[in-house]
């Protein structure tokens, strides 16, 4: 993580699930049935606890006996406290953008909070840099690419977000203040892949650079 990013993005990391149209559409039929009973009405949110923070160039531990999946995402860094802001004013509360790789175990179900899947040490890589809002022409027209060992394995665009960034800030700040330094993970697209010890995993977003991590085996796990 660059010094500037590290200094600014030091708050709570909030994630938004099911915020890519492709992912949501895939599950809609299932979401009409129990235990869900209806499609989500409000943004589906989770928290990446501080122990999950990780950075560009660092290792990510593959938990023994589990499947590990990267989650390429556009990260929004809050610059000014946002309480009950309108979508029109939302971007004035943003310091800038960065890349987030929101690592997770696979999620078969969205019914219960995904603490065990998402809150493991080092499971939220953020970086490499903080790019100011003014340097990004349209944050809803950015290509995300996930590379594993140099090959593109997942690709999507922020044009496919279910809720736009201003809309997310407005809906979240209606009930909880987004504080300066908080990071909003705007969603990860469908078709997550598995990665394995030894893999070089990189997320590239148009204009934001490339965030790289190496997967390593948990001590005691065969490589």
């Amino acid at each position, binding site marked *: 993580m660059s010094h500037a990013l590290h200094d600014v993005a030091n708050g709570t990391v909030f994630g938004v699930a*099911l915020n890519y149209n492709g992912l949501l559409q895939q599950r809609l039929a299932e979401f009409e049935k129990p*235990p869900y009973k209806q499609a989500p009405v*409000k943004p*589906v949110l989770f928290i990446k606890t*501080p122990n999950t923070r990780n950075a560009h160039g660092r290792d990510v531990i593959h938990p023994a006996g589990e499947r590990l999946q990267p989650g390429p995402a556009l990260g929004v860094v809050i610059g000014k406290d946002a309480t009950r802001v309108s979508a029109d004013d939302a971007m004035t509360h943003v310091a800038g953008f960065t890349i987030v790789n929101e690592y997770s175990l696979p999620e078969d179900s*969205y019914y219960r909070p995904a603490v065990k899947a998402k809150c493991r040490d080092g499971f939220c890589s953020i970086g490499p840099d903080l790019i100011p809002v003014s340097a990004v022409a349209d944050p809803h027209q950015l290509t995300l690419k996930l590379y594993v060992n140099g090959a593109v394995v997942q690709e999507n665009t922020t044009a496919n977000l279910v809720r736009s960034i201003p809309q997310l800030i407005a809906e979240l700040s209606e009930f909880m203040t987004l504080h300066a330094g908080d990071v909003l993970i705007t969603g990860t697209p469908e078709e997550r892949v598995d990665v394995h010890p030894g893999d070089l995993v990189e997320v590239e977003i148009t204009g934001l650079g490339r965030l790289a991590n190496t997967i390593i085996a948990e001590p005691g796990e065969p490589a």
Partner: protein
Amino acid sequence: MKHARIRFEGSVHAVTVEADNTVRLADGRVLGERQVEWLPPANGSMFALGLNYADHAKELAFAPPTEPLAFIKSPGTYTGHNQVTWRPDNVEYMHYECELVAVIGKPAKNVKRENAMEYVAGYTVCNDYAIRDYLENYYRPNLRVKNRDATTPVGPWIVDAAEVPDVSNLKLRTWINGELKQEGTTADMIFDIPYLIEYFSSFMTLQPGDMIATGTPEGLADVVPGDEVVVEVEGVGRLVNRIVSEADFFKNNKA
């Protein structure tokens, strides 16, 4: 000893709490309970347990869980002793939840049950309010129910672990406007504190200042603006909170 964080004349102080809830600052000054603004005594993540009392699970028509049901709260939802919490307009059901909270004292990873209590610095109390109107079946209980601004009173203080000899046998009680509404005992917890520390630390590192809110027994009721809500855990603390309307809260707390 009891440790708290307070704000006085614009500055935040770490204090110790003495007789009659007076607080002693590092410089020796002693202030009354009503002279200071009480802040949450810890600021780590809160791992809150759902359905961790068999009677409460039954009250909500759920079978008791076979694995802990945990959700996370972030510091923005915490508020201190003697502060206010807002009830949103046009909701049907907002209820309190009186809970014993274990505060982690040192990093805990792969801790076994038999050693777990060495990682507990002390205990506090929380009122894990929920607005049931906002429940959705995605990461339930979702953040809109449980992670709202100033909707998780915590405190008033942390009492050292050594001063709570049997944490698995404490009475929990809630009063609304002086009327006893909820009564239970930590003896009825499904997953106890050593179990929970072993569970969380098996897949992540618990950090100093992290809190485990251990769930609530049966006896829930609606609260409305004007209500004084007191939650108490025997031998740990008595945490007072007052409900205000949405309009009053944002009039006084607009960022």
